[in-house]
């Protein structure tokens, strides 16, 4: 059982914001909808939650059609990107509000106990008597999360809950959220523009692009087989390198003048767009199959404990992710190694995934 959406669509002022979305989120899933700003993830979340009306299609909870069921009667909780709390209530009262507003009939003692439990879990025990305006942004968002948790709702929706937080706080809360929401009875539905969030938190990932759900499936499966070049580009950090390439009948892939690879392609000969993620390139040879290519550094960026190097190989702009903190100067010549097992072949016209370039060498999916 869980949430099922069938051909869901919605228009605002005659313009469609979301079209033909179908997916099934089972109980126990942590479903992440990934997509750029304005793609329609928030709309999708709001429709699944019932905050916005569905213009077309239907949403089912546990097999029951939810059209016409008002939000207050649904087993849901929601956390917004903006820190939404009741400004006139204290943190304690905020967390207690779903317990008091509903018809759960809890005694005052039970309410207090459950609020304290949630507050403890989220490190809010010290600020329970404060008002939301008196605590930090991180604490405000934790309050909103505690309110969602304490309700015990079957389905919890989180709309970019970490987007407005500082980098370090985001890093810490990401792991915590995953831990908090694990092993609950229902499902978690989470929207984010950050591909790392999607992969590290989600059991399932839905890629939303231009008002459509382009691909939905187990997180790792989507990551290892992006349906289109657009999914591949977005669901990678840094963005996937995409290069026009030609594959001949002998299984030889020509990416540039000097970069020619041999493999056992899953696709027939023809013209392709070859995609490989930044970490498929490295500064050291990791296996004998790796192909070497010369490149010139354009810019190097330190990302956490890694370095992202933007380079040019012949006329192709490529991005490399290497696991160390190092500074490269612009214009510096370096040698890179490309792992052919990590090359995806996308159809040159439709952008659809045709297959891996070196299937036998592909890393096994987790």
């Amino acid at each position, binding site marked *: 059982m869980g949430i099922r959406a069938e051909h869901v669509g919605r228009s605002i002022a005659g313009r469609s914001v979301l079209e033909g979305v179908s997916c099934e989120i089972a109980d126990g899933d942590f479903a992440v909808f990934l997509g750029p700003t304005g793609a329609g993830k928030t709309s999708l979340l709001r429709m699944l939650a019932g905050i916005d009306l569905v213009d077309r299609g239907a949403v089912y909870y546990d097999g029951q059609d939810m059209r016409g069921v008002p939000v207050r009667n649904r087993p849901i909780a929601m956390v917004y990107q903006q820190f939404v709390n009741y400004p006139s209530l204290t943190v304690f009262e905020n967390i207690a509000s779903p317990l008091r507003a509903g018809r759960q009939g809890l005694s005052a003692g039970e309410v207090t106990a459950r609020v304290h439990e949630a507050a403890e879990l989220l490190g809010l025990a010290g600020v329970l008597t404060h008002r939301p305006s008196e605590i930090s942004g991180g604490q405000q968002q934790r309050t909103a999360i505690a309110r969602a948790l304490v309700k015990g709702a079957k389905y919890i929706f989180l709309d970019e809950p970490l987007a407005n937080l500082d*980098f370090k706080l985001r890093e810490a809360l990401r792991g915590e959220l995953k831990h908090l929401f694990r092993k609950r009875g229902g499902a978690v539905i989470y929207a984010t523009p950050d591909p790392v969030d999607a992969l590290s938190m989600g059991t399932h990932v839905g890629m939303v692009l231009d008002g459509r759900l382009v691909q939905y499936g187990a997180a790792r499966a989507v990551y290892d087989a992006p349906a289109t070049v657009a999914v591949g580009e977005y669901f990678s950090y840094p963005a996937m390198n995409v290069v026009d390439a030609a594959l001949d009948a002998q299984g030889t892939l020509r990416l540039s003048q000097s970069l020619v690879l041999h493999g056992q392609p899953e696709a027939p000969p023809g013209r392709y767009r070859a995609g490989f993620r930044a970490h498929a390139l490295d500064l050291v040879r990791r296996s004998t199959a790796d192909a070497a290519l010369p490149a010139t550094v354009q810019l*190097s960026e330190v990302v956490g404990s890694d370095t992202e190097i933007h380079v040019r190989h012949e006329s192709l702009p490529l991005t490399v992710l290497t696991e160390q903190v190092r*500074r490269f100067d612009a214009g510096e010549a370096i040698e890179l190694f490309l792992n052919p097992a990590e090359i995806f072949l996308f159809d040159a016209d439709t952008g659809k995934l045709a297959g891996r370039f070196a299937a036998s060498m592909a890393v096994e999916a987790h």
Partner: protein
Amino acid sequence: MARIELDNLSHAYGTDASGAGFAIQRLNLCWEDGTANALLGPSGCGKTTLLNIISGLLRPGGGRVLFDGVDVTGKSARERHIAQVFQFPVVYEAMSVFDNLAFPLRNRGVAESSIKPRVNDIAELLGLNGLLQRKSKGLTPAEKQKVSLGRGLVREDTAAVLFDEPLTIIDPKEKYDLRRSLRDVQRALKMTMIYVTHDQHEALTFADRVTVMKDGAIQQTGTPDELHRNPATPFVGFFIGSPGMNFFDVEFQNGACSVGEMVVPVACANAGPARLGIRPEFVEVREDAAANCLHCRIRVVEDTGVYKVLTLETESQQLKARVPERFAPAEGAAVWVWFREEALRIFPAQGEARP
């Protein structure tokens, strides 16, 4: 362009008796002429205050600001020939983009004939050439911010260009282009630039030398590599790098110490309490029990696509470890860890608390 020195600088907003109201405390710093620098720290650490003191928008409570050795503490922003770009876009909305970019030049009486090429150059650099005739009111926030950046870069006679988290509102894709443009300009014109941010990516990417600040005091100044490899304080260790450094409170006895049941093979001359720091990259994790390892349980596994970050718990505390993609054990599994000796860092116990 100038070399900028801060000499024993202090500044307080609301001074209370305890001195806790200090925004900046007795600070000494020097930025060499023509270098790209960053000031990195969490919000509220005093970096914007410091920037405003350098540009002359704020008079410091104590200490001096020197440009090329000349004391400019009492001079106004205009006299210092400083350019500054703010966190949120500041455009003169009634003017066109061109007039906005020309404004700092016109105010200083630059001839119209030399304004035009200069404005066009800057517009080209920032990708604003198509917008020059537009009213700046209708621009998107990102475009407005580029106009602000342009006004900061348009003057050639500035002593330094200061940036106060200028890319906060720019899209990630464009951030990269703008960062590169800024670096290119800096390299080409050998400008002295100071870039303030709370985002370690931006600081470490933009600057040759990064200064980490906390609570109005300098923690460390160095190249990105130095900061990452040899943090001077636990704060730097935690703040730089992702995830940040792990810390353990330990007691040294006979030149060694232990974390839980694991004896850490690190030499330290001083006996007594200390803090041990290790980056998650150097926490080694194995699935089977081994001698002298720390027994942990996996609390959370986060897959980034390139590596996995494990949050581990021992009896008494949590730590993070970074492991390769192929690492199989799932959440809840028992594992054993040890630390790579060469990566261990020792900090005094009386250092500041981890945030």
